[in-house]
């Protein structure tokens, strides 16, 4: 059985049908890219997988490690190993990044019935991962994402992913707002986290991210359904031809 199985998923937002029968199976160790034009439902899929309120599932099912995912609260999903890297990471004034990271990691451990990390152990892990992402410790003393540049915010997302060690990471438009240098740092961070025990879903509008994070499988999402699946060469084809052919196909 696949790690994540999405079968015939139908989702409404504000009474509009966004996902209309989406099927997807992701195994551990695989990196899937989901590409598609604006409004095709890419971010909706990311949000439904992570449990954001406001999305009404009207049909289909989603299982994670064989269990029904849709009935779980977002924090439980996180503790079970699902991580969403936000397209627009939120700013939380008044909460130091360090405090936030520690609260999150220990909350996940508590939900899983594991002991909390000791302070030295936690700091050791943060330092190790932060260094790999060129995040200095001063940044971690500042409130979460407040005053961070676009690149710093995305690196902070990848730092969280590295610390939480999820089984499934969903990266929602991680390339948006990044210049080429920042993109490379973030992509290298993601690549280091590729592992046989971890699956990734990389959601993107543009092919350029996939030059840096080379996917095993590429899906084209159009009008709420996956309309084509192929290898990494499919991304190049999309770059050359655009999404126009698929928008007709799905109609």
């Amino acid at each position: 059985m696949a790690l994540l199985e999405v079968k015939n998923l139908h989702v409404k937002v504000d009474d509009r049908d966004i996902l209309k029968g989406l099927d997807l199976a992701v195994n551990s160790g695989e990196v899937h890219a989901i590409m598609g034009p604006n409004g095709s439902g890419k971010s909706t899929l990311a949000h439904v997988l992570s449990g954001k309120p406001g999305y009404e599932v009207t049909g289909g099912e989603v299982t994670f490690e064989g269990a029904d995912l849709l009935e779980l609260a977002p924090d439980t999903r996180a503790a079970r190993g699902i991580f969403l890297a936000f397209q627009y990471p939120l700013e939380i004034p008044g909460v130091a990044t360090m405090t936030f990271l520690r609260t999150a990691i220990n909350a996940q451990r508590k939900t899983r019935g594991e002991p909390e990390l000791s302070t030295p152990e936690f700091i050791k892990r943060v330092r190790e991962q932060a260094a790999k992402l060129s995040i200095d410790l001063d940044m971690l003393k500042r409130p979460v994402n407040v005053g961070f540049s676009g690149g710093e915010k995305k690196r902070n997302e990848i730092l969280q992913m590295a610390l939480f060690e999820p089984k499934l990471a969903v990266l929602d438009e991680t390339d948006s707002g990044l210049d080429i240098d920042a993109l490379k740092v973030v992509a290298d961070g993601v690549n280091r986290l590729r592992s046989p025990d971890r699956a990734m879903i990389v959601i993107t509008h543009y092919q350029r991210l996939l030059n840096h994070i080379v996917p095993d499988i590429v899906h084209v999402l159009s009008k709420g359904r996956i309309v084509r699946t192929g290898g990494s060469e499919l991304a190049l084809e999309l770059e050359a031809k655009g999404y126009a052919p698929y928008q007709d196909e799905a109609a």
Partner: protein
Amino acid sequence: MTAELTPIKTAAETGLAEAFIELRSRLANGVVAARREAAFRRFETQGLPHRRVEEWKYTDLRALMRDAKPLAGVPDAAAKARAKSAGSMFAAVGARRIVFVDGAVVPELSDLAALERGLKISSLADALSRGLPDVVARLGTAGPAEGDVAYALNTAFMGDGAVVEVGAGAEIARPLHLVFVYGSQRAAAVFSRSLVVIEAGASLTLIESHEGPDGVDYQVNTALDLIISEHARFSRTKVNAEGSAALHLATLSATIGANANVSDFAFLTGGQVVRNQLFVQCAGVGTTLNLGGASLLKGTQHGDTALLVDHTAGGCQGRELFKSVLDGASRGVFQGKIIVRPGAQKTDARMMTRSLLLSEGAEADNKPELEIFADDVQCGHGATSSALDDNLKFYLMARGIPERNAETLLIQSFVGEAIETIAHEGVRDALTAATLHWLAGRQ
């Protein structure tokens, strides 16, 4: 035939009048007695303020104050015993404590030994009974709060309080903590009045805390006259942790000289009906003023912050940030007015009030006002009230933090932004701990 119009007095107004007659009969005649008399007449002509009085629009004292309690007597041993642990939230600060129980200073609980050079502390009751002219002269004559009814009542009935003087150039490193405790289990009224004078170039960090037993409907009317000279630095943190049924009216009447640095922070969790009034006059150029507050209210608590900042001299910077967290059916009120007088050019004043509503039944009333009579100033104000941000909550939950904890973290963050403006780290830590304690009490 002439019809005489006599306004109908409420039970509380009648009670206050009777209490004043009784008080007057006990006190000697003199300058102070005349001051009390004049203040009481001012109250009598206005009566208790009600909702048609603009400054008290959201705090109808006539309705909220049903009766006048008898003046508190001398605290007994049991009341003093209860006061021993009062103000312990600041234990780690290591402040010099002056303890007042039921409005009267208790020397055996206070630390008056080895005062720093330049620091003078005495009892107001003592100064008044001896008629000390320099104290009497500086006690709120024509100060910024003059004319306010709660302040007038305080002047009429003032009992004890602290008289603190910091001499020119004296920098007092150790914070001073005025601990006000209501120690009796029976309801009475306390009128405390303090005077703090910071002379040129001097500095002081003041903590003021108020607490008392839950379920006793005692009444506190407290006032602080503050006179800050040029180049002086002063900061006050006032904590209101009064008992659950208490009525607490507090007035700050501050006059600030040139190039001073003054900050005031009010932390409110206690009391049933609370009004904290700040009358601040920036009378000298180049002063930096920071006023802030955090109110955490639940149940049917009513917490009102009334602010009047009067810039009579130019080139001052004013920052005001007030936050309230409102749960249950509580009501948070903020009325803030900044006046920039003609000639107070280059005034830079910003006032912000934010309310976080945690329940359907909570209410926030915010009324910021600017009155600007100078043409080269920067002034702004803002007011927001909202529920917790669902997107922020989701971000935290998506990181594995359960809903309740996510809410707690967000409320802490909301309050933290205001607390962070306090310069003294120990005081900041104490208020952060008190915020967490309040949050832990939310179911």
